[in-house]
């Protein structure tokens, strides 16, 4: 059965790559065919339900780099299975929905490539047992999400939002990678199943575990858009509706929550877990609904409620009691079902009426009956009406908060506030557009094609069915996932719709009453919210913008400063750094040659040296090309003389030959080259002169140090001297080295000369077209 988990991922990735081809063959219908792929994956995963409900797990292992402990490990337990079924199941409807929503778009094939790439990555994230593999899939979801958010790539806002999502989640991903590597080193394993089985208390007590926790939390918080990283999620609404429905409600943003749940048995042992995770979740929960109330765009409203739900889930996992985890899992399932449906309905409204302003649409129930029915079912679940899964979720949520030790009352107030606002927003998103008087819209409204309402209806019905018969989904999906999150199976999961007359039910009643009041006041809040828009400019998003523009500005400055295109500046940098580095190490090496080893001064060599010095100085000062050539010739021949005087006859011969040739070359070339021009100011010349003199002094010291050090390793030279006659039958050792021992070097040298000759020939023959400045004169 382990292979099935790989096959499911493989067929989804495979579908991604044939999607563009399929689109060319079938046109818009390709979406309907492609929808069968996640359906097949869902069936494969569903076949695992009995095994996992019985407490088992499905595992697959394939060694990758055994020496590094890297393996492709998949392991599906209750938590994974819940996510896998959501991803593949909702994936079917999103694929069909996109076929209708993006009907007639030329690059629909590309869209499906991204979408299925994302789907496969997401399946990989939730079924990976190895943290490194999980990270790889995690980053793949970031990249495919970037491509999907930026699908309307001609719109600047769309591109900016995509980049923002990528940078925020990508940065978090890098932090998470650091956390994963630290954790792996500490624990000695990267496998989640082994990590969760470790003695968490001992591991958590290790020094540096706080860093692990914070780094991994950064990854989870950025991905799940927790405060203060929440801003990318509402901006991601630039994406087409099926993307928002899939990535930004049901799946990708839940990856962060998934990670928190996945590592819950281990990380929650840390004393920092609850103080960090629960408050961040609570802030996000309240911030989401508060900002959602001010929005005038159905998709934005849904995005902010998604934020709020993600905050709720994070908060519940932060509290981490059995009741809280149970509530989180039910809430997660309920939210995925209703939110995916509502996003699709919002997209349909936009598609069919041309507007997403909740105050501009109304009374669409006659024109769009199926969409209205789906939205109503989903909206009731979101609002938490009895008989729907959302109600069960909310009851568990309240029960978990009531049961929280210590500040139970505080958590209850926070939870009820968020639920009241959630109720009002559910009514705004799901009731307001379809009921009341029919309002005029930019497009004449009519029902969307079946591909666009079948998904929301079925998801809505699923929410109703799961609510009415909680035992089925509870026993098969919720209980195993709760066991996986808590890390043990000895919890009795009582799961039912009706809990009797409890405090939680009372709070639900209060929620509905206050929610209706808030819904009636909502249009006025929206109207007033424009005045507070300025506050949005001060939020964390401003930090992101400053950081981004600051980084770009710094990179721009750095490039302009260091890569300025002036050859002289590059050379100056190289020379100064070389001199500085040599001076750094030289003093410890410097020992002047002792006087007994010195060769006494002799007339001829000293005169040659003086000639060379004079030639070099003259070359620098020469005012005409003729004197410059003469000076260079003096230097070259002088160097040849030195070779001759100090036992290098071959060198001397070569040098003198080459110098003669070079002289001829200079004479030939210089008269084709421009006259000496005088560009530099005197100040620059003096500055360069000082730098050059300093560099010369450093090099003099290097030569002295090297002579003083003496005793170079002579073993190679000795071997070559001894082998010269017996092996190569030659007495001139330098010649033997060149043509025998290092013959390949000489071959290389000849090749270089040949290439240089070809280059010179080509350059001289070249007749550039007159497009360049000046042309060929």
């Amino acid at each position, binding site marked *: 059965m382990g292979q099935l988990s790989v096959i499911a991922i493989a067929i989804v990735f495979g579908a991604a790559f044939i999607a563009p081809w399929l689109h060319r063959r079938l046109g818009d219908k390709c979406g309907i065919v492609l929808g069968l792929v996640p359906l097949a994956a869902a069936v494969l995963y569903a076949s695992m339900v009995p095994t996992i409900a019985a407490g088992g797990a499905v595992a697959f292992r394939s060694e990758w780099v055994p020496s590094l402990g890297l393996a492709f490990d998949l392991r599906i337990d209750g938590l994974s299975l819940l996510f896998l079924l959501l991803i593949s199941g909702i994936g079917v409807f999103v694929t069909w929905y996109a076929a209708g929503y993006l009907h007639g778009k030329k690059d629909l094939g590309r869209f499906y490539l991204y979408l299925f790439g994302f789907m496969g990555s997401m399946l990989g994230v939730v079924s990976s047992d190895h943290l490194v593999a999980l990270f790889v899939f995690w980053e793949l979801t970031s990249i495919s999400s970037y491509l999907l958010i930026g699908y309307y790539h001609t719109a600047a806002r769309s591109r900016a939002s995509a980049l923002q999502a990528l940078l925020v989640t990508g940065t978090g991903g890098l932090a998470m990678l650091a956390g994963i590597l630290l954790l792996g080193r500490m624990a000695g394993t990267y496998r989640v199943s082994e990590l969760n089985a470790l003695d968490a208390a001992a591991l958590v007590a290790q020094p540096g575990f706080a860093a692990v926790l914070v780094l991994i939390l950064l990854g989870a918080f950025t991905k799940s858009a927790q405060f203060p990283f929440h801003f990318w999620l509402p901006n991601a609404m630039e994406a087409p509706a099926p993307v928002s429905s899939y990535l930004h409600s049901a799946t990708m943003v839940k990856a962060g929550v998934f990670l928190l749940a996945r590592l819950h048995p281990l990380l929650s042992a840390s004393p920092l877990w609850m103080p960090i995770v629960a408050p961040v979740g609570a802030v996000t929960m309240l911030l989401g609904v508060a900002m959602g109330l001010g929005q005038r765009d159905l998709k934005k409203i849904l995005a902010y409620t998604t934020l709020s739900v993600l905050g709720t889930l994070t908060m519940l996992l932060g509290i981490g009691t059995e009741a809280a985890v149970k509530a989180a899992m039910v809430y997660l399932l309920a939210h995925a079902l209703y939110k995916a449906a509502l996003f699709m309905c919002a997209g349909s409204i936009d598609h069919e009426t041309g507007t997403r302003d909740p105050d501009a649409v109304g009374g669409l129930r006659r024109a769009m009956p199926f969409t209205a029915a789906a939205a109503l079912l989903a909206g009731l679940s979101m609002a938490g009406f009895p008989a729907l899964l959302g109600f069960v979720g909310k009851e568990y949520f309240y029960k978990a908060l009531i049961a929280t030790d210590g500040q139970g009352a505080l958590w209850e107030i926070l939870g009820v506030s968020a639920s009241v606002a959630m109720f009002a927003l559910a009514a705004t998103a799901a009731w307001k557009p379809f009921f009341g008087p029919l309002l005029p819209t930019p497009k004449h409204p009519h029902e969307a094609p079946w591909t666009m309402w079948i998904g929301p209806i079925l998801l809505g019905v699923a929410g109703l069915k799961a609510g009415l018969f909680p035992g089925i989904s509870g026993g098969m999906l919720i209980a195993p996932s709760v066991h996986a999150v808590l890390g043990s199976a000895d919890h009795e999961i009582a799961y039912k719709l009706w809990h009797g007359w409890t405090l939680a039910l009372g709070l639900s009643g209060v929620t509905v009453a206050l929610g209706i009041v808030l819904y009636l006041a909502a249009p006025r809040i929206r109207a007033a919210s424009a005045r507070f828009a300025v506050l949005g400019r001060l939020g964390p998003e401003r930090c992101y913008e400053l950081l981004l523009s600051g980084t770009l500005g710094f990179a721009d400055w750095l490039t302009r400063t260091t890569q300025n295109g002036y050859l002289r500046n590059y050379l100056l940098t190289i020379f100064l750094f070389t001199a500085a580095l040599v001076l750094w190490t030289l003093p410890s090496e410097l020992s002047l040659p002792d006087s007994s080893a010195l060769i006494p001064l002799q007339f001829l060599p000293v005169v040659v040296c003086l000639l060379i010095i004079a030639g070099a100085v003259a070359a620098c000062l020469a005012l005409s090309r003729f004197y410059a050539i003469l000076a260079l010739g003096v230097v070259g021949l002088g160097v040849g003389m030195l070779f001759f005087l100090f036992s290098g006859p071959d060198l001397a011969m070569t040098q003198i030959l080459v110098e003669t040739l070079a002289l001829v070359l200079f004479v030939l070339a210089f008269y084709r080259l421009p006259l000496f021009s005088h560009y530099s100011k005197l100040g620059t010349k003096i500055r360069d002169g000082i*730098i*050059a*003199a300093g560099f010369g002094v450093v090099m*003099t010291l290097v*030569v002295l140090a090297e002579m003083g050090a003496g005793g170079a390793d002579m073993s190679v030279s*000795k071997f070559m001297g001894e082998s010269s006659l017996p092996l190569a039958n030659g007495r001139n050792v330098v010649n033997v080295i060149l043509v025998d021992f290092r013959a390949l070097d000489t071959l290389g040298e000849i090749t*270089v000369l040949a290439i240089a000759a070809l280059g010179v020939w080509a*350059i001289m023959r070249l007749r550039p077209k007159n497009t360049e400045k000046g042309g060929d004169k």
Partner: protein
Amino acid sequence: MQIVLAITIGVLYAAAVYLLLRRGVVRVVMGVSLLSQAVNLLIFTAGGIKEGGSPFVAGASTSLANAADPLPQALILTAIVISFGVLAFTLAMAYRADKSTGTDDVDDLRSTDAQ
């Protein structure tokens, strides 16, 4: 003698650096040429200098006795020839750059795009 040689090499380096930092392309080419002379002499002295000890295997002996180190000499011999190739190529480049762009100021040659 070694100290005089060291100073000579230092002066060659200084002159090469000075010329390389000039803006006229011809002077830069001259700097390249001087730099290769300086480097060759540096390597030459690295083996330790010796008078009257050419690296030949003399008479019936099969080893080098009291002779200069042949290895740096072999390297320099290659370097001399290569630097000649480099010189020819740079001169050709300088010629072509001048003809194509109408300037011999390296500060004007900051971009590969026609300005």
